[in-house]
C-alpha cells in the first residue's frame, strides 16, 4: 500500500462526515451559492496542478499541468466571484435589515 493511504482514508472518512453535517445545515435558500462555493473550494486541486506544471518532468506533464492550472484556477476565481455576487443579492425586506 502506498505511503499515507490509511491516514488519508481516516481523513477522507472524517471530512466526509463533517461535510454531511455542515451541508445539512445550509438553508435550501442558498443551495445555488453552496454549489458555487464548493466548486471554488474544490478548485484547490490547482496546488497539485502547479507542482505538476512546474517541477522537472516531460513536455507532456508540463502541458497537462498547465492546462490543469488554468482550468482549476478559473474555477477558483470564478467560483468565489459568483458566490459573493449571489450572496450580495439576498436581502431581507424593508426595515427588518439585520
Amino acid at each position, binding site marked *: 500500500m502506498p505511503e499515507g493511504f490509511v491516514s*488519508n482514508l481516516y481523513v477522507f472518512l472524517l471530512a466526509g462526515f463533517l461535510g454531511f453535517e455542515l451541508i445539512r445545515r445550509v438553508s435550501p435558500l442558498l*443551495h445555488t451559492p453552496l*454549489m458555487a462555493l464548493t466548486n471554488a473550494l474544490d478548485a484547490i486541486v490547482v*496546488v497539485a496542478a*502547479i507542482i505538476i506544471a512546474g517541477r522537472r518532468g516531460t513536455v507532456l506533464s508540463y502541458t497537462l499541468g498547465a492546462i490543469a492550472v488554468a482550468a482549476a*484556477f*478559473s474555477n477558483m476565481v470564478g467560483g468565489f466571484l459568483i458566490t459573493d455576487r449571489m450572496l450580495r*443579492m*439576498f436581502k431581507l425586506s424593508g426595515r427588518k435589515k439585520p
Partner: protein
Amino acid sequence: MNITGMDLTTVQYLTDFSYIIAIACFILSLKWLSTPATARRGVLVGEIGAGLAVLTTFFNPELVQFQWILIALLVGAIVGIPLGLVQMKAVPQRTAMSHAFGALAAALIGISEYYLHVHDLTKFQMVEISMEVIIGCLSFTGSLIAAGKLQEWLPQRPIVYKGQNFVSFSVLGAAVLAALILIFNPTAPFVFPAMVVISLLFGVMLVTPIGGADMPTVIALLNSYVGLTAALLGFVLNSKVLVVAGALDGSSGFILAVVMCKAMNRSFTNVLFGAFGQLQVSAKAAEEERTVHTATPEEAAAILASANTVLIVPGYGMAVAQAQHKVRELLDVLGKKGVDVKFGIHPVAGRMPGHMNVLLAEADVPYDKLVEMDAANSEMPQTDVALIIGANDVTNPAAKTDQSSPIYGMPIIEVDRARTVMVIKRSLNPGFAGIDNPLYYIDKTMMLFGDAKAFVSGIVKELTGGGE
C-alpha cells in the same frame, strides 16, 4: 532549487501548516454559508484559505520553472472572471461548466501522474489512478453535455434509443476492463489512452439521455463526482488538502442530489437510467375537449387586488421569460395595496438546486418572502390566490391523485387547495416532461395565456393605472 533559501524541512513544515490552515478556512467557510447573515463571511474565509494554499505552493522546492504556471494562472483568471460575472439566468450552465473544468483539471493531473511514474507504479497506485481518471473523464464530458443542454445548444429532451442502458453499461465495462489490464500490467501499450477515451465517451452517454427537468439532480450528482475525483487525486498524490476539499465537495453534491431526488420522489437509478419524460403516450389525448376558464390581465389584476393573501409559485418558465423583475414589481404594487404576497419555492423548480431563490434575489425580492414547499402547503387553505408562473409539474395535482401519472408520488405545492388558482402559461401544451396537468381544467383555475413577462407586466400596469 529553492527560491527562499530556507532549508527543505522548514519549507515542508510551512507548506503543511498553511494547508492545514486552508482546510480550517474551508470548513469555517461552509459553516458560515448556512445562513444568509453570515454567508458572505464564509466566502471571504474560503478565499483566504485558497489564496494561502496557492501562495505557499510557490515555495515548493520541487518547482524548477514558473513561466508556464504564471501564464496558466493568467489564462485561468481570464476565463474565470467572465464566468464569475454571468447573468443569474445563466447560472445553471455556468455551474455545469465549472464542474467540467474541475473534473478536467483533476483528470489531467491523474493522467500526467500515470505517465511520469508508469515504470514504477504498484498495483495499488494503479487502482487509485484508474479510478481517479475514469471518474474524472466521465464527469468532464458529462458536465459538458449538461452545460450544452442547459445552454440549449443541445436538445433538452432526453435522447434515447433501444438498448441504450445495455450499450452504456458495456462501455463502462470496457473502461473497467482496461483498468484491470493496467493494474496487472501498467505499461500495457495503448490501454491507458483507450481507458481515457472510453471514459470520456461514457460521460457523454450517461448524460445525453437525461431530460432538462432532471437537471437539478444531474448537476448535483456531477458535483458529487467532481468532489470524489479530487478526493481520489488526494489519495494518488498523498495530499490531505485535496482529500478534505474533495470529501467536502463530494458530500455537498451528494446531499443536494438526495434532496432533489426526494423532491421528485425518485431514485438515483431512475433519474440516471429512466429517461424521464421521453414517451408520454397520453391516454387522455383522445378524450374530448375539456373546457378551461381564461382571464385577461385586467380581470386577473382585479382579483389579485381584492385578495388578502397571494402565493406566487415560480418555475423554469419564469426564468426563461426573464419575468422575475416584473414579478418583483407585482410584489411591490400588491404590497402597497395591503395584499400579503409570498413565494412558494419547490426544491426542483428550475434547472438547479436553489435556482428560483437566486433569480428572485437578483430581482430584489427579499428572501423572507420565500417559503419552502411544506410551509407553503400548510398555509394553502388560507391562501386567496395561488399564481403560478412558468411552473408545471411541481404543482400538478396528478402527482397525488393519478396513479398512472409518471410523477405520481412526487411532493407538490398543492395550489389546488387555494381559493383561486391562476396559471400564466403560453398555451395548453403539456409542460417540459410532457405530462398532462388536470389543474388547468378545474373550476377555480383561470388560465392566463401569454408570455410570463408580458402578462405580469400587463397586470402591474392595470394595478398601478387603475389604483390611483
